[in-house]
């Protein structure tokens, strides 16, 4: 593919531009100084004593179920998982009899903090619905860390979540991946080193927001696709111009005119280079297939189709293209493009050879119980004759979302060396009665059902006579 190799070269040169100027070159024209990380994470896990969870049923997230097994957390990392381990001196010991241990739950689709509760006008920051392409916006600049939904999600075992811009636009903006820890700033929650995502949207939403409500482009699905293509063409041109400029600078051309920086095209260029991961809101099978062709036309990769209500119709196509489906267990019918939703969607995407199924929420309610959503999907799959098991299905809400977020080497499974993001459940988590007893994030006990903190975690509830108490 000519295009792909060209993009690779462009990527190489722009990567060089980020390096400090070499002292050997005489008076180089300084390249545009673009910070690769202008809003850096300030999150550091507190230090924690070793924790030893013993005699529990352990779902590792790698497909294994270990009965009567132990999990050891040391210095914020998973130190060991197995049978008959020994607790180090000074470790906090948790008796795991009748309890189940899983990796921390990860939601790839949340609007927490950006479209928070209470949903008043002053808090409505999730959709920059003023132009079909707002790839220039970053959702982290909307995140209100006091959204009480972070706490209720924590009670459901959520340790990591991706906050996405809304789906009004073809290009909604950049996402951010957060650790579900209390902080007065979003930087204090930012998952260190996690790549940003680019939220894009198919279908009805952009049509409705621009065509129906404003009589603007796009008003049709063909308009949607023309809109994506026009933007990607601009992004390719932007990359080419940067490359030409860098070549001139490298050749010592003092009159080289820098390319005017454009935040929107920065994002699109980063997506073309694979530095920003593309998350695509798409319901219908035909549209997903179009988007797969589109991504090949411009040489980028879609990591996941979100909602993907018709993914079951093209489960093999998604698997062949290494694209995850991030889905609900049973939502359907609330709009035309969700009319063909079925309860077996997740199980069928999973059943395709190489398939990658993710249970997502897109909801401050659903995020509190992704385990139950997975249980429903398993039940529907079993009833349809597909093979389901807790040790396999747990990956739908741990390992697979970690993969789609580009953080699978750090979290998502209970493997030695990974972040100690761990949930201890009071029973098999695939049950309506299952409750998280303890939630650890980087080895720190962030949630303890029996011993809640004296004050609510969100500032919002302080001094509110109506507040329900510290039990979420």
């Amino acid at each position, binding site marked *: 593919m000519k295009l792909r190799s060209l993009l690779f070269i462009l990527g190489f040169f722009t990567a060089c531009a980020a390096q400090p100027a070499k002292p050997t070159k005489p008076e180089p024209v300084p390249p545009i100084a673009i910070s690769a990380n202008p809003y850096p994470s300030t999150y550091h896990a507190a230090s924690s004593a070793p924790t030893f969870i013993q005699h529990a049923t352990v779902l590792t997230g790698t497909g294994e179920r270990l009965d009567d097994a132990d999990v050891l957390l040391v210095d914020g990392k998973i130190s060991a998982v197995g049978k008959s381990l020994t607790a180090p001196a000074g470790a906090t010991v948790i008796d795991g009899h009748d309890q189940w241990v899983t990796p921390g739950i990860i939601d790839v689709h949340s609007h927490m903090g950006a479209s928070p509760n209470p949903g008043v006008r002053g808090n409505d920051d999730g959709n920059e619905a003023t132009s079909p392409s707002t790839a220039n916006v970053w959702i982290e600049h909307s995140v209100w860390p006091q959204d009480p939904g972070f706490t209720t999600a924590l009670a459901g075992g959520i340790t990591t979540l991706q906050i996405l811009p809304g789906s009004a636009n073809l290009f909604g903006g950049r996402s951010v991946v957060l650790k579900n820890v209390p902080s007065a700033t979003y930087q204090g929650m930012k998952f260190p080193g996690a790549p940003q995502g680019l939220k894009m949207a198919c279908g009805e939403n952009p049509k409705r927001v621009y065509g129906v409500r404003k009589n603007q482009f796009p008003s049709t699905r063909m308009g949607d696709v023309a809109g994506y293509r026009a933007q990607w063409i601009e992004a390719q041109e932007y990359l080419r111009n940067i490359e030409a400029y860098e070549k001139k600078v490298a050749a010592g051309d003092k009159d080289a005119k820098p390319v005017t920086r454009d935040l929107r095209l920065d994002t699109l260029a980063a997506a073309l280079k694979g530095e920003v991961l593309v998350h695509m809101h798409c319901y219908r099978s035909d549209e997903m297939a179009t988007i797969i062709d589109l991504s090949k036309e411009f040489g980028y990769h879609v990591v996941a189709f979100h909602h993907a209500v018709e993914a079951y119709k093209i489960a093999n196509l998604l698997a062949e293209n290494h694209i995850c489906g991030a889905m609900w267990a049973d939502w359907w019918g609330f709009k035309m493009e969700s009319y063909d939703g079925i309860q077996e969607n997740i199980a069928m995407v999973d059943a395709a050879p190489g398939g990658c199924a993710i249970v997502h929420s897109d909801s401050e*309610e659903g995020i509190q119980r992704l385990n139950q959503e997975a249980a429903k999907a398993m039940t529907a799959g079993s009833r349809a004759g597909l093979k389901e098991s807790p040790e396999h299905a747990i990956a739908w809400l741990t390992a697979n979302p970690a993969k789609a977020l580009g953080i699978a080497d750090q979290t998502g499974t209970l493997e030695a060396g990974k972040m100690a993001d761990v949930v201890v459940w009071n029973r098999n988590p695939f049950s309506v*009665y299952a409750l998280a007893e303890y939630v650890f994030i980087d080895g720190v006990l962030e949630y303890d059902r029996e011993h809640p903190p004296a004050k609510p975690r969100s500032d919002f509830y302080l001094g509110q006579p109506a507040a329900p108490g510290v039990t979420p």
Partner: protein
Amino acid sequence: MKRNSIVFAAVAAWALAANFAGAGSVLIRNATVHTLVANGPLDGTDVLITDGKVVSVGKALTAPAGATTIDGTGKIVTPGLFGGLTYLGLDEIGLEPTLDDPEVKLGQMRPEFDVTPAFDPDATSIGVNRAGGVTFAAVTPTSAGKEGSIISGQGPIVTLDGAVLAGSQGLYIDLGADISELTGGSRAVQYMLLKQAFTEARTPNLVLADDQRLLTPAGRQTLLAYAKGTAPWVFDVDRASDIRQVLALAAREKLRVVIAGGAEAWRVAPELAVAGVPVILDPLEDLPANFDGVGATLENAARLDKAGVSVAFSFVDPESHNIRTIRQAAGIAVAHGLPWEAGLAAITRVPAEIFGVADRVGSIEAGRPANLVVWSGDPLEVTSVAEQVFIGGKLEPQVSRQTELRDRYLEKLRQNAAR
């Protein structure tokens, strides 16, 4: 059909055929039966259904000649479930204006508006949710939108064979923050308008200029009929202070009121218990959708039940497509302190009582229509499924638009077809 129901002409032929197909007897043997009238579950119990009705509930019943027998060993039998306050049959597709009938946008207070004629018994969500064990639901209007009214109008209870239950109408009123744009920006106006509506309804000779009048003659008659105290006034309110206002209004006007939503109802639990006012709440509501719900908690149902308040369940967003998950919501309430029996009652007997249809739905008792479900296990558990669903004694098919879609594409998946 012998049942006390209105069957629309459009479905009359289908319903008759269904009744014919269901003639004869069905005996469910050796199940754990939750009748909702007996105290606790009945183990190793049989249920005999003949001619659409439950004939007998007991041990070792004899199957009449030709009866179909279902082995209930290891199964749980409950009344068919209540889907909540819904748009069932009114919103085939929620966001499509041509398929969305729950709203009246006349810019007037029209309590005489009744959604019943818009109810479509062929809505695909009926079959989908029936297969999930839901057999009855409230079909409700909504006041949403600037051209609406705080009094949304009336809606009936339907069974999920497409029948509308006679005499089951409720009157729906929406108060509070989510509707303040309708009432000049202040929620105090909501109470002012309600007071005037009662004055108009109760004062037959009242002379008012057209632009000062709230109600049509039909609207006045509707309010008077509901003010007699038989049918419920369903008030959608969340904030504790609004719930207290509604209780005061109910006492003053002698209304039979029900609180719907009720995010902060637990804070008013003693007053609700004394007034005998039930609450239809969403067990999942634990975050403040707006400032009316600062007190929202997963323990709302448990705290109300403990205080002696009757609790029923509905999703706060009254759509129709996924009401089959109401049993999951009940299970979540149980996980947060509600006794299991109260959780089941909240989606069976209690809503049937609230809407005056307990003689037809919500329990299993000899002489009553056989609306019941055989479950693979605990009906509140997400890993259980509805195996057989009976409405009016008829075994409903476990086939829906969704199962047909599934079967078509399961085959494709097995053939490893990419497109």
